[in-house]
């Protein structure tokens, strides 16, 4: 389980500059509008001390409706570290930077970058850990792999088994290993914890991994490293304990064409994603056996990749290992689930207010590529996934297990916002009041501006308020996102209560709809991460009145670790709202408003 953060609700003292009289865009940045006139992503890659990283390879991959990425674009940073990715298609592109042995520290938005974005990507040389791995007689154990697990971030906050990126780790013929391109932080190292593949046996994979210096995970010594530093002589004496076997059968392999079935074992208390073993069984061999499992609580899951429509998997089955082998575990393969829906445009208004305000253009269409759908299982440690829209505006979030999911729209066009999220049934049974029940148009039709009341009057639907419950093997269909033009945007920064105080290592800015009727209108709660320098940007905001609140996570410096928006949880949502009401500072955003240089001052103390 994730260790809870010291999450605090801070009353926000909001000083908005300029605050009054701001109705429309002012001093727009280089970003182009939705016409895509400047389809480039530009920026600079810098290393330590802001020095340019000449020759860094910058790559952009475009999200597709299948959920995958394709159409990769490539640029090399010049001697000043400057790069330009040209001909970038609309929508979000995932950005990768390669300049070994440097690794990216920050500067790449989670949702990706859009044409017109200007990025400053900061890199640093990764840390290195080196040593030897020998048996109890001092003989080198060539071929073993040494694996690092990040247990604390740079500032000391404990992690819970998230994926750790690194390079190296193979023990060579002298018994020497070297792990590099590590983020700064604190690690434990184990020898022998390697995923087994069917194609190639892994040396001593039938033995329990040994943690540095020579024991179980609970006895592991921690190793702290800084960016660019090297820690040597981290020698491991491999014990080679046999451990116990966990075995059973995979039922239902015949439901898909023969392919490959893997069985993965997770530590139960770190059930997010921590894989400790992988076996692959032939399609006709439905039994499995995992060697070298030490005492503990685990979860097992089987996944089959065949010639069918996609993978099928089992639910996670819990097992306890207590001093003996465990047999007879049954993993039943079942088809995976999906959520389908479509994105439509609101028809509340007849004019394009943003276009009229900025360029006099009457109505511009909404592009499919500017909208993608994010989705995430509401469980600790689960990471968001994304899918693009198909040519008819529909989407499918696939490969889901039976669980509760949250979905949201990620919109690359700053003028668009989600007016509401509901199901097709709700569309034919409109909620009372305002324009919330009007019939939406297909996305291919020209979109119109919002009246500014769309968000504030539509009653939130169940799926927007509570998420979507998915039953294993079933499809949930008919989800609908209704988007409209007229979105507002707020840019600014947070500031410490006293000049000279440092900012929290991780913080978020939240906009909470002020209308009490919208207390459960999750779609219109906005929550964004604050950059290291205190900057933030809230985009695609429905016009309306909001409270501004900040969330801080003292000591947490792990931007890769997911934190659910407060609005997803009914209690946290209520607390967030209460914080906003107590402060009582309201922010009214007009259609298409561009609010620049807002300053959110943090209160002193918790």
């Amino acid at each position, binding site marked *: 389980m994730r260790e809870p953060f010291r999450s605090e609700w801070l009353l926000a003292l909001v000083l908005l500059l300029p605050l009054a009289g701001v109705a429309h865009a002012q001093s727009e940045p280089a970003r182009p509008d939705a016409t895509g006139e400047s389809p480039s992503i530009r920026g600079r890659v810098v290393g330590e001390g802001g020095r340019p990283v000449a*020759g*860094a*390879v910058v*790559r952009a991959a475009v999200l597709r409706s299948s959920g995958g990425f*394709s*159409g*990769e*674009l*490539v*640029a*090399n940073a010049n001697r000043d570290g400057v790069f330009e990715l*040209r*001909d970038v*298609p609309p929508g979000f592109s995932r950005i*990768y930077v*390669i*300049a*070994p*042995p440097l690794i990216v520290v920050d500067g790449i938005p989670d949702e990706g970058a859009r044409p017109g974005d200007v990025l400053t990507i900061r890199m640093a*040389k*990764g840390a*290195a850990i080196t040593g030897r791995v020998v048996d109890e007689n001092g003989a080198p154990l*060539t*071929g*073993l792999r040494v694996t690092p697990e990040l247990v604390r971030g740079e500032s000391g906050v404990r992690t819970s088994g998230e994926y750790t990126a690194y*390079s*190296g780790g*193979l*023990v*060579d*013929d002298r018994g020497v290993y*070297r792990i*590099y*391109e590590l983020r700064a932080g604190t690690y434990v190292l184990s020898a022998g914890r390697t995923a087994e593949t*069917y*194609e*190639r*046996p*892994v*040396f*001593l*994979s*039938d033995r329990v991994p040994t943690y540095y210096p020579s024991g179980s995970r609970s006895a592991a010594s921690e190793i702290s490293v800084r960016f660019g530093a090297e820690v040597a002589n981290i020698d491991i004496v491999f014990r080679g304990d046999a451990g116990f076997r966990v075995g059973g059968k995979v039922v239902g392999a015949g439901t898909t*064409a*023969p*392919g490959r079935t893997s069985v993965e074992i997770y530590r139960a208390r770190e059930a997010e994603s921590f894989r400790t073993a992988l076996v692959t069984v*032939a*399609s*006709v061999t439905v039994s499995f056996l995992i060697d070298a499992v030490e005492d503990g609580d685990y979860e097992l899951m089987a996944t089959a990749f*065949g*010639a*069918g*429509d996609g993978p099928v998997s089992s639910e996670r089955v819990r097992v306890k290992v207590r001093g003996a082998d465990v047999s007879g575990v049954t993993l039943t393969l079942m088809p995976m689930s999906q959520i389908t829906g479509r994105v439509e445009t609101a028809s509340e208004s007849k004019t394009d207010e943003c276009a009229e305000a900025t360029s006099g253009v009457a109505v511009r269409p909404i592009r*499919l*590529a500017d909208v993608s759908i994010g989705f995430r299982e509401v469980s600790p440690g689960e990471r968001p996934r994304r899918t693009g829209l198909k*040519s008819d505006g529909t989407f499918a979030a696939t490969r889901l297990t039976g669980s509760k999911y949250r979905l949201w729209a990620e919109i690359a066009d700053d003028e668009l916002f989600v007016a509401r999220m509901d199901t097709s049934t709700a569309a034919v049974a409109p909620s009372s009041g305002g324009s919330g029940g009007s019939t939406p148009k297909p996305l291919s039709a020209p979109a119109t501006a919002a009246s500014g009341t769309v968000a504030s009057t539509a009653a939130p639907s169940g799926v927007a308020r509570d998420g979507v419950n998915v039953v294993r093997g079933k499809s949930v269909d008919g989800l609908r996102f209704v988007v409209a033009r007229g979105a507002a945007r707020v840019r600014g920064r947070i500031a410490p209560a006293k000049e000279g105080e440092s900012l929290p290592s991780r913080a978020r800015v939240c906009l909470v709809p002020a209308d009490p009727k919208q207390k459960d209108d999750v779609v219109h709660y906005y929550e964004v991460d604050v950059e290291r320098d205190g900057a933030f940007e809230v985009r695609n905001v429905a016009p309306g009145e909001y409270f501004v609140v900040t969330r801080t996570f003292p000591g947490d410096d792990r931007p890769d670790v997911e934190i659910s928006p407060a609005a997803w949880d009914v209690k946290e949502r209520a607390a967030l709202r209460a914080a906003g009401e107590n402060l009582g500072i309201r922010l009214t955003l007009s259609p298409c408003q561009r609010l620049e240089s807002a300053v959110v001052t943090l209160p002193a103390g918790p």
Partner: protein
Amino acid sequence: MRKRPIGMIVALVVAIQLFAPIPQAAAQSKLDKPAGGSISGVVTVEGKPAKDVGVILMRFEAGPFDATAVGRARTDKDGKFVFEDIGQGNFGLDAYAPGYFSFDDSPREGAVAITLGEGETVKNVAIALEKGGAITGKLTDEDGNPIASQSIQVYAKQPNGQFDLAQVWERTVSSDDRGIYRVFGLAPGTYAIAAGSSETERSLNRGLGVHYERRYYGESPSSEGAKKIELANGGEAQGVDIVLKRMADGYMIRGRVIQSGTKQPVPSAFVRYEFERAGGFGGSSGVSASEAGEFSIQNVATGTYAIKAVVRSSNEGSFTSDAVEVNVVDRDLNDVVIEMKPAATLKGFIAPLETEAGLDPIELRRSVTCAHRHRRASSPTARSREVPTFMLRVRPDRSFVAVGVRPGHYRVSMWPWAPVKGFFVARVEIDGAAVAGPVDVEGTETIANVRIVIGRAGGFIRGRIVGRNGEIVYSRVDVTAGAEGNGTLQMVQRIDSSGEFLIEGIPPGETEVKATYYPPSGKPEVSGSKRVSVPAEGKVDVTIELDLEADPAPKGGGL
């Protein structure tokens, strides 16, 4: 020890794709696998029994790239291993002990080849491993800065004097964050070490890493000028340092995909580009055009490219294009136009043979190939225009729609490398009538109601190769079974050490079994063949004699 140049293996694979006749059976079924059969043996390291060594059992099916790992074992304290209840088939065994090598090992076939009949047992298989040597050095740029995460290529001198990529225990060897690399587990011999990328690799792997110009140890751009490294048994060569130069930035190819008649854009077409290198085909990659039909290929090296477009969904119409050849010299190309012209459409569904009541075609829906009648291409660009083979994308309801079909004669077959094997295309019907021969496509018509009938291929051939007038190295023999008439073409990758082989998944009828021997001395190949009648279920035996002193011209008929 290498059996033959890898290029030949690739050529054979391609040949099967191009020549696939109808109906064709794939290799044996993975379903209903017979029980029984075992292989056991011992692994030694430097002559002593080795414990904890992983042994893997591979099963060779449709060809050299169709080896399926079907078993794993680990040696006990006496170095022994056993695989039981593995059925019949052509198997390969490999032992993995990091840092050690086997003199008998070959890159793809493993250390030991065994053909096993139903219920047969092979004991006392011996795999001997030896401690390997190591080569280490450092990669730096021209300013002396270390180059990290750059892959190392290891070339070993072959008996014919050529340097081929060596099999190393660690499949990918890279420099670390200090630029240092170490390759180990090498057999004694003569080596050349290189790092960096070729132009081909850069164009294929755009954006996947930082590319440096290929350089061999000894500051040479080619293996001929490389400084050679003599590695003794278990020895170590140090200081094998290489200085690399960063590749210049590539260029951009921009263009549009339009309809030839209306000049309107073709949205979302897939733009595929192939490039030439000295001596032929250099590789291919692709990008998707935008909804406006625009595309850009970024960071490509100088060279000649053949660019064409295909549509991948029936929603986007049925179009095809000829390849446009462009030369990238010293600047971006910004106005490449690919014109797509209307093409034919094939629509239909797959169905089981009347006698195959239990056969579920859904399992086979990604295994059906539609093959263009072969026309040998004269150049890479010409080959790209042929579209010789494509897979029918069969939907879960068993239907399929193929768009962008060019005029030609199409044979339908099962894909030899499909995960589901042991079936063949019994016949093809259009509007309820069986088609005699290939499906003919003449223009831009839509051919609907195509029914592909699939049957089960339950026959198998158990054979033996016998040499006359000389000793045959069985690892250098290929066997194929097939004929235009009954529509099979199977290749056995390897004959076992006793000269035996097994070919499964053959449909009933007359089949020609052909053996070809590639002598190690570079002498002309020797062939022999025999026709057999394969039953619907069960075995037929065949023996083929190869006369090593016979006329090297291919033999017809049998013994």
